[in-house]
């Protein structure tokens, strides 16, 4: 609260401006953060690992798509330009790993890659994709922010016969007509596997809570549906007594869990629909003086911090949602442009982390 003397107007302005500029310079000049262990920073190095595995091998069941049916001619992926449109800014581990994986695979195959990031604004993503097309992308990989509203882009792409592969979220359109194929996880299945993990951890009896993701998001709905249906079916002894949203954020997960453990001290397990909320729940339990394992926590995503939580004994299981789309996306595009049939729905195999493999596999987590 330093008093600012009644300076003359212009002088005060100059002073303030100089002050702001100097401080900005200072801000960037001599930062010194805590030493973080290998955790961050190494993500690019790790992105080159095997990537995803397809759950149902293509060519098996399910409809396939060929370049003849889609329209357009064959081309050589090596000499093509691929456009990648990312939906959210690379601020969370999932998006960071996803973009890094696409970039790494493009570099490995020597393909020219154009990228754009919609910063969570749908209108920006539409114009991003149109820009990518205008800049000469022959093939598109899109991580859609929304499922609907893609008509303008699809029309432009169809006119130029540009194959589109969508990753991690689907778009509401006709496969093999509007886009080639979708590569992603089955969120309902993730919920079911989380339920299995919860049943195993709690022994199938007691009261449990769900920390929901952001409202109105298909990831939230599907992970909830899979979990609740499986619990009802396999372990009627487990009762879901609490469902509150943690908005996929650590802080919200923490404050909701703090309230939960006070109003329902007998709670046996917490299912967090992403890792961040699960880590918030761990914070809350620590704050309430609980011991690791008193309340079983099961989360989905497979970020490094959560897997480390298993090693420390706070988290019982983490179901992975694999963000490394690069290898599979390019493999699909490669096969497609060579004229081979590719599956319209490519569901990837997500692994899981438990007490048994967490310590050994913590380096695989993103």
């Amino acid at each position, binding site marked *: 609260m330093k008093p600012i003397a009644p300076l003359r107007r212009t002088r005060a302005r100059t002073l303030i401006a100089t002050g702001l500029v100097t401080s900005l310079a200072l801000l960037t000049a001599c930062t010194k953060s*805590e030493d973080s262990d290998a955790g961050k920073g190494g993500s690019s190095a790790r992105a080159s690992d095997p990537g995803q595995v397809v759950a149902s091998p293509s060519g098996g069941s399910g409809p396939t798509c060929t370049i003849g049916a889609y329209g357009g001619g064959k081309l050589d992926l090596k000499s093509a330009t691929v456009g990648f449109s990312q939906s959210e800014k690379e*601020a969370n581990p999932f998006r960071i790993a996803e973009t890094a994986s696409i970039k790494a695979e493009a570099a490995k195959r020597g393909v020219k890659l154009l990228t754009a990031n919609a910063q969570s604004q749908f209108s920006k993503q539409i114009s991003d994709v149109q820009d990518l097309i205008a800049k000469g992308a022959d093939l598109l990989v899109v991580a859609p922010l929304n499922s609907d509203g893609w008509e303008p882009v699809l029309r432009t792409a169809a006119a130029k016969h540009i194959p589109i592969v969508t990753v991690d979220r689907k778009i509401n359109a006709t496969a093999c007509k509007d886009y080639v194929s979708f590569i992603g996880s089955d969120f309902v299945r993730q919920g079911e596997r989380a339920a299995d993990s919860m049943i195993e951890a709690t022994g199938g009896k007691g009261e449990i809570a769900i920390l929901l993701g952001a409202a109105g998001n298909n990831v939230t709905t599907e992970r909830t549906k899979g979990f609740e249906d499986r619990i009802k079916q396999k372990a009627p002894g487990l009762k879901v007594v609490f469902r509150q949203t943690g908005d996929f954020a650590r802080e919200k997960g923490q404050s909701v869990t703090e309230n939960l453990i*006070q*109003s329902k001290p007998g709670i046996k397990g917490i299912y967090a629909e992403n890792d961040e909320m699960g880590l918030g729940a761990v914070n809350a339990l620590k704050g309430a003086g609980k011991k690791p394992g008193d309340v079983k926590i099961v989360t989905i995503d497979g970020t490094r911090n959560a897997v480390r939580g298993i090693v420390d004994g706070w988290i019982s299981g983490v179901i992975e949602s694999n963000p490394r789309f690069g290898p599979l996306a390019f493999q699909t595009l490669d096969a497609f442009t060579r004229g081979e049939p590719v599956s319209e729905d490519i569901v990837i195999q997500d692994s899981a982390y438990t007490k048994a493999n967490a310590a050994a596999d913590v380096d695989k987590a993103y």
Partner: protein
Amino acid sequence: MAELSFTQGTLDRARLLRLSQEYGVYAGVVVLLLFNFVFTANFASAENFRTQAVQVAPVLIVALGMALAIGTEGVDLSVGSVMALSTSLLSLYLGYGPWVATLIALVGGALIGVANGALVAFVGVQPIVATLALMVAARGLALVLLPQLKDVRDPGMAALGSGDVLGVPYLVLIAAALALLVAFAVRRTTFGRQLLAIGDSRPAARLAGLPVRRVLVVVYVCSGVLAAVAGVLATARLTASDPTSLGTLMELSAITAVVVGGTPLSGGRVRIGGTVAGAVLIQLLTTTLVKHDLPPSWTQIAQAVVIVGAVYAARERGKR
């Protein structure tokens, strides 16, 4: 509250309205407390009150700064982003130790405050527009400095977040001390008087020879520093710096607390006690709905009802 017991059934409408303006927020807090004592399991425990107090502390601190800005007939929309900036700075400078890092975070908040104040006082931009610009800028800066969540392992910060003195958490002590300090500044200092005079009528204050510009800049600096304090405390509690989500919609929570607390948006009056009660009211409301496991959408609707109620009660005050 003593007045209430002396009034018999002869209250006329104006008097009732005035009382509801003055004490409505306290009555709301009491009603919610009573409801929870009766209907919520395990509510009446020391542990629970501790949790509620810890959760309300950051909102309360931000609301104090907001009350000052609103008292000058302004508003500070940049507070949430300042929290994010402060958590970024804290994380970046933690290598120098928690004290230095906290100091730098507070300086960051003060600088945003200077920018806000300069735009409002010297350039003459409307407060809502000026602070909106800084809201966008500060969030952007925070994300440039620290693009993603980073864990904070410093033991000092962890102690600040979860430690206590005689059972009262540090967070609550700090919030209470700041509330007292701000209340004292508003009521007992020249600065407080000048602030209220400017809020009442800026031209009149200028004609009376008050240092209008200086007071405005100091007000926005206070608001920025308080938001930075809240950012540091929230980081300590979370033991992680999360500039993407920390402080989002915090400006709205803070404005709600101030308005529900009976501070008019037209300026010239600041009620710190009411602001504290307003923050507590919103916290209790959210907690009640969470503890009874009602759908989250209900919380938003309930908050809206409280805001409309508070503004309705404050409606007559504008027509002086």
